[in-house]
């Protein structure tokens, strides 16, 4: 168990390092540098002065040198300052990360609360009209883009009915973005749960349980649900990381002040320290979530616990 977890942890750290290196290289491949963009459209600054500013920001160094310097500062806990506005990157990211996590967790809760029972219901009524109806709805849910669903929900609940705010912060303003992100993921959870449950229902041990006369409810809850949940939990981990990413679109629609929106702005402005900081925080979050999932996985499945 311990070696299993420490192996996972080491892999997680490696993942974070690879992600930051890859992003540092990739962002420098995009044409345009932050200084040029900062002065775009409105400035009468001479090219020599632009060079001077680049030098002051360390942007005239080779990428490898820039990255090593960045790592050096990072090890001292310094994520640098933004190129635009010269503000500490760590403060910016940490102010926004909780918003994105809150959104992703709420959406996940909605997805599970709807998707899990729906999938389970469909599986237990396999081949009936219930099954067809749930799966049809799920296909529709998967196919609807976040962007469209978000605007429809907004115009319905915020503009027409006036029940919820259009955008902004606070608990009420969380409802629409979390619904938008949660509903389409509920569809995925439902589909996954159904197929996983059906797989389990066809297993020998379930047939045995049924044959020895256990009540159906007991078979379903103790045997089918428990083993059927394992792949669903794994998938939910991936799902959660997708939601962190998918949150970027939803954050934009609902002006939710999350980390994804910060990243988009930073990419357009080539604000390298912010982009690097974002990837670092994002990758770390994903690794932590995956690690926690491995723990849950081990708890659910005795075979992993023992190995």
């Amino acid at each position, binding site marked *: 168990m311990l070696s299993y977890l420490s192996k996972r942890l080491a892999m997680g750290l490696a993942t974070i390092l690879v992600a930051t290196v890859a992003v540092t290289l990739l962002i420098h491949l995009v044409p345009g540098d932050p200084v040029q963009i900062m002065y775009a459209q409105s400035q*009468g600054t001479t090219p020599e002065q632009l060079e001077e500013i680049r030098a002051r920001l360390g942007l005239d160094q080779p990428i490898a040198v820039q990255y090593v310097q960045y790592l050096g500062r990072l090890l001292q806990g310094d994520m640098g300052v933004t190129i*635009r506005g010269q503000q500490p990157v760590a403060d910016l990211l940490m102010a926004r990360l909780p918003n994105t996590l809150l959104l992703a967790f709420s959406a996940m809760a909605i997805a599970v609360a709807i998707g899990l029972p729906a999938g389970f219901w469909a599986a237990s009524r396999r081949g009936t009209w219930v099954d067809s109806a749930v799966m049809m709805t799920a296909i529709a849910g998967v196919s609807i883009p976040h962007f469209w669903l978000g605007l429809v929900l907004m115009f319905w609940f915020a503009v027409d009915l006036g029940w919820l705010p*259009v955008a902004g912060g606070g608990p009420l303003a969380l409802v629409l973005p979390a619904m938008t992100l949660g509903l389409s993921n509920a569809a995925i959870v439902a589909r996954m749960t159904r197929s996983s449950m059906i797989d389990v229902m066809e297993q020998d041990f379930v047939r045995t349980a049924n044959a020895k006369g256990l009540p159906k409810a007991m078979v379903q809850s103790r045997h089918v649900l428990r083993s059927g949940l394992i792949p669903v939990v794994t998938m939910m981990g991936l799902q959660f990381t997708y939601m962190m990413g998918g949150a970027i679109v939803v954050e934009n629609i609902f002006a939710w002040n999350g980390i994804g929106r910060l990243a988009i*702005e930073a990419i357009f402005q*080539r604000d390298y320290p912010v982009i690097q900081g974002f990837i670092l925080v994002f990758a770390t979050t994903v690794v932590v979530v995956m690690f926690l999932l491995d723990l849950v996985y081990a708890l659910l499945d005795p075979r992993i616990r023992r190995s």
Partner: protein
Amino acid sequence: MTANRLRQLGLGAVLGCAAASPLAAKDIVWARYGDIDTLDPHRATSTLSLQVWSLIYDTLLATDATGAPVPNLAESWEVSEDGLRYTFHLAEGVMCHDGTPLDANDVKYTVERAFDAQNPSVTQASWGPITAAEAVDPLTVKLTLSSPFVALIPFLADSFSSILCDTNAEAEGFGTSAAIGSGPWMLDSWTKGDRIVLSRNPAYVNHGKLAENPGAPYMDRLVVTTVPEPQTRLAGLKTGAIQIAEPPLDDVPALQESGELKIAIAENTGQNVFWEFALHRAPFDDQRVREAVARATDVDTALMLIYGDLSIPEQCPISRGVFGNDQEFCAAHRAQYDPEAAKALLAEAGGWGPDNPLEVNMLVWTGGKRDRLAEVFQAQLAEVGIKANIQMMDIGTMNARVRQENETPDGIGSMDMMTWSWYDPDILYALWHSPGAYRGYTSPELDAMLEKTRVLADPDERKAAVEDVMAYLLDKSIHVPLYTPGWEWVFAVRPEVEGFHVAPFVYPVFNDVKF
């Protein structure tokens, strides 16, 4: 017990909610697509930042409705004969937001901070060659220059030159959580990416800004929020959560028709949208081909199709609101729409025509319906025998690409729909004086003409020098003006809101707003 705790938590959440959404019924909420970079006017250049600085800080000079500089914090000023010394006389009784008087020392502090050896302002160059700032007495400040620089006066009317109170030096978090100015609005808080909350400055006296209200703003608070998605801004306008915002451009005609929201359009923005070309290589090294593009482009029709009456054609390389702009003068030099002449030019230059089209790339900045406008231009160019491949990209990428194209000796022709704005004809110096903003056109002849526009203090002489430059650029079809304004210039306003207007160079003014 558990139920009790839950109830307490629930109550807490409700209270937390009230605290987290501090929008009172009578706040002005202005939603924009993006946030400021910083509250420190020496650390950024974006329009989004400038607009907010103009609310918090005041400037020595201001602009009138035509864009010309007028007195503001400085009631009057003198320039020495050699153009090297500027003396400004400050208005009496101006107070900083922290209660200290605004005097010559604050101006001196601002200028010296902009020229700080370790960390100068990112717009240091626009201040000109200032070598010293001196507080002669509390209400007199003198700036010394190493060489004449006439663009200093319009610069001092722009928020790039916002006057910072010298108490900012000791203020903790200046630029992020503190910003002490003397403008009509005081900073309450800034949550980056979300909102800037401003409250009215009760001590504000308007000395020259474009507002009817002589004193403090009527409304108690102004909340500047960031809402990136246009449809969300529209939804907010409809529910009343937002009073003022840029609407989705496609919805503007319907909004105008229904009268559901008022539409305010910024005038004299200084924004210039124009064709420019990779001039160092074929085919655009040939003046005839550039002129053919100018003559093939029917700006009036294209604008009417895409923007209706929201934007207008521009004849000059520097747009309305900027010193030296003269539609008639420029129209006489700019190659006008004439597709037959365009066909003849193309045939003469390389035997190109509708049956044997010239293939070029057309770079266009995404957003503001420019993709659709570019398609209209593409169709117009195709009619005379130019096959333009539209390439859409964000402005950062486009700036880099244009420079790249200028530095590449071969490849198919490259033209781009460029967009610049500035408050002074000095913009032409930045764009076209060697080596040029994008390493584009360079000529010693043009360089000499541009240098003259920087030093001539007499307005008539300077205007003539600016006209020489514009005539040169237009005659050779180097800078082919298309239209103005072109980005973030349309505001939708709730019907009950009165007194909102936009000053030249897209500075919204909230001093007169009431509802």
